[in-house]
């Protein structure tokens, strides 16, 4: 028997716009699946369709083999945590967390609320008004509120996107730990691949409503299915075999060589190319170089150094991936 979530050929449409186009996806019990894609890729629409918040034009969503078409949102047991928390403004922290626990007795409910708040690191916050919370705290409360429902599937829609970078990095750890500690099955939608790679067992990449690839993070990174996925993950430029060989590529070349952030390295045995710009980053300098084909590529060099006019560079096999040659190239943006 199949278990967990099965999404089959789901289509969601807003008027003429096809937001989700024939997507199929499985999430096993206890698994954390991240869906990544640029804004407008259809990932949030997919989540809303699974939750029952958007009607399906065609296809099906089922759990443990049972079709959910006729099951309303509140009976699915799929809790949604939204981007900006959507805490209920007229209830305090405890009231929000305990929202799904209304069938429990008062004492038991309080106990559960306190346990959940402790789980997300907000011990003793139950009586606070939600207006007194910072953005990060509000999201922790939203997480506790969702977990209180003991959902068979927890769905997180860009839960950290409204927060600043530092907080996001810390909170994604909290989310990951909490979801694992409670052995919750989760569908995590984000545009941030670092977030996705941190939290997910498997990552699904979407673009223009279509599902491009589903894989474990390491696998996804090593073997992006096509140039679109690779570009979204941060690969680029994409070199054809001849050019790649010039820069020392010795591996297989049944497609294009996708140059990752560490794919082009400086080295005395490399080919000399002109340096067009230099940017100083965290403990490193990134040189923008011009390849013989006219394409721009980036070379990272530790420390802060002055921009040379020329630099000898070569490809590092570990930092590159091979992707199939697309039929049409001009739609791809790095």
């Amino acid at each position, binding site marked *: 028997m199949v278990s967990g979530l099965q999404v089959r050929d789901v289509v969601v449409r807003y008027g003429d716009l096809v937001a989700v186009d024939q997507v199929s996806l499985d999430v096993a019990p206890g698994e954390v699946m991240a869906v990544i894609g640029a804004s407008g890729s259809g990932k949030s629409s997919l989540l809303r369709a699974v939750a029952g918040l958007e009607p399906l034009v065609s296809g099906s969503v089922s759990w443990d083999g049972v079709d959910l078409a006729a099951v*309303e949102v*509140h009976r699915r047991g799929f*809790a*949604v945590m*939204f981007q900006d928390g959507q805490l*209920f403004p007229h209830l305090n922290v405890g009231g929000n967390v305990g929202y799904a626990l209304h069938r429990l007795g008062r004492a038991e409910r309080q106990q559960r609320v306190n346990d959940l708040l402790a789980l997300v690191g907000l011990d003793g916050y139950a009586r606070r008004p939600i207006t007194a919370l910072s953005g990060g705290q509000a999201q922790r409360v939203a997480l506790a509120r969702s977990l209180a429902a003991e959902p068979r599937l927890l769905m997180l829609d860009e839960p950290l996107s409204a927060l600043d970078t530092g907080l996001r990095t810390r909170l994604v750890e909290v989310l990951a730990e909490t979801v694992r500690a409670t052995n919750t099955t989760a569908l995590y939608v984000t545009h941030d691949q670092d977030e996705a790679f941190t939290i997910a067992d498997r990552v699904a990449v979407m673009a223009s409503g279509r599902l491009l690839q589903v894989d474990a993070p390491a696998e996804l990174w090593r073997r992006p299915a096509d140039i679109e996925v690779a570009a979204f993950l941060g690969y680029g430029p994409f070199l054809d075999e001849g050019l790649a060989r010039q820069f020392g590529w010795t591996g297989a070349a049944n497609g294009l060589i996708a140059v990752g952030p560490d794919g082009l390295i400086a080295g005395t045995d490399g080919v000399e190319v002109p340096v067009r710009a230099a940017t100083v980053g965290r403990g490193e300098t990134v040189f923008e170089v011009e390849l013989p084909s006219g394409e721009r590529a980036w070379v990272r060099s530790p420390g802060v150094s002055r921009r040379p006019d020329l630099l000898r560079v070569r490809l590092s096999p570990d930092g590159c991936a091979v992707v199939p040659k697309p039929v049409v190239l001009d739609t791809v943006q790095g």
Partner: protein
Amino acid sequence: MTLRRDHGRTWVWAVIAVVPVAFLVIFFVWPVAALVARGFFDASGFSLVGVSEVMVAPRTWRIVGQTLAQAAVATVLAVLLGIPGAYVLYRTRFPGRTALRALVAVPFVLPSVVVGVAFRSLLTESGPLGFLGLGESFAAVVAALVFFNYSVVVRTVGVLWSRLDRRVSEAARSLGASRVRVWWTVTLPALAPAIASASALTFLFCASAFAVVLILGGSGWGTIETEIWYQTTQLLDLPAAAALSVLQLVVVAAALVAADLTRSRQERALTLAGSPVDHRLRRGDAPAAVVTAVVVVGLLLTPMLTLVWRSLQTAGGIGLGNYALLAVGDGRPSVWEATANSLVTAVVATAIALTLGVMVSYLLSRRPRSVAGRRLLRWADAAFMLPLGISAVTVGFGFLITLNRPPFDLRSSWALIPIAQAIVALPLVVRSLLPTLRAINPRLQEAAASLGAAPARVVATIDVPLAWRGFGLAAGFAFATSLGEFGATTFLARPDRPTLPVEIFRLISRPGAENLGMALAAAVVLAALTAAVMAVAEYLGPKEATSW
């Protein structure tokens, strides 16, 4: 299982939709249509003779001209005076601002009979401003109309203004625009939707004004509404009344369409600051502050205080003599009995208006997916606003000629009065509830549903608590409206059971200082009751347009 649940859902929606529609059809559309139809039928069948006679009569066009002129001038004045008021009361900060906002809000809910009596006591020959010779004049009518609608402009424009993001005008300033240029190129265009919407609403209220014009205009000045009343009650000329009702409908529909267009533009237009933006009142604000002070003292306070002062004047000097007379029955119900009757009627009317208003607002606050559904809702929205502008006189008279035989033989029933008043109050109830319901972020309802809350629980735990404050305001409006309703009630109240406004009008229409004194005292009582009701509603209502 699923099937049964779906049927249950459909059934609930059907009730929510059918009950208010049926009520509106029976107690509004039918009576009005029946009255209008009478104008087109005489003994020999369908005939346009009566109506066309009215349409070519100079008197008709004089009245239409007066109606439009009064409404237009009053609207322009209300806007010109209201914009500085909106600035001072919503964009600046000073001690006593809350009290001043409350004071400015009072006139809008004052019963029109009271306002008529107050302005008459001010402008009549023996009144404080009698020397101006403005009794029964165009100016008197316009002044009273501005008095009523000043707060509509101040509130509508002010609430938007208080939320305009200051950084937009700061950006314009930093690009080299002078204060004057910022006002014309940034602030005014941003406020334009609110100004347009307040203007349309003010025009609508002015064009359908009744009691205040009846009392202040005398025989020389009227509106279509007073003319309908005159034709039906004094001349018993139904074709004339019918033709005038149709004219009224055209004017009202035009104003409603304009209001609807500007409203939908306003709702989609601007990105607003999260919380109100204001600054301490400063030297540069002096012109606006002076204009506002003059309006508040001269236009708002003077008539109200004159009313109170003159109600205390008796033949034997200053005292409570006029109030003592309110208890005297003299063979018919005393004013106190009329007051009690008014309160009971208002309670019933409020209950009806709120029940229907909640259903209508809930329905109108839904967001249908289909284009057809959205269009249907827009039409429904406009339809439920119609009683706002349709002559209350037409409704009242329509009741008399339709609800006097089976299946609705309610002619002699007291219940007609609260029903008519509920019809008149319904648009205000919907307008108070709808914004708070629409402001509820649908994500909150979705979050609740995804946490396992069934639709009924979502309503009980999310919608109701968040809309509760709007509910208090709606109840206040409904109660105040029915307490002061005159146009329809005057046809329906029986002599042995008058309401307070009807009694005040009877007293002021009769000669004698004693009757006038009682009318003034009764008007003060009615004003005090209304103000008390609104004070409670404001207390329960939104302090500011809270952001959720």
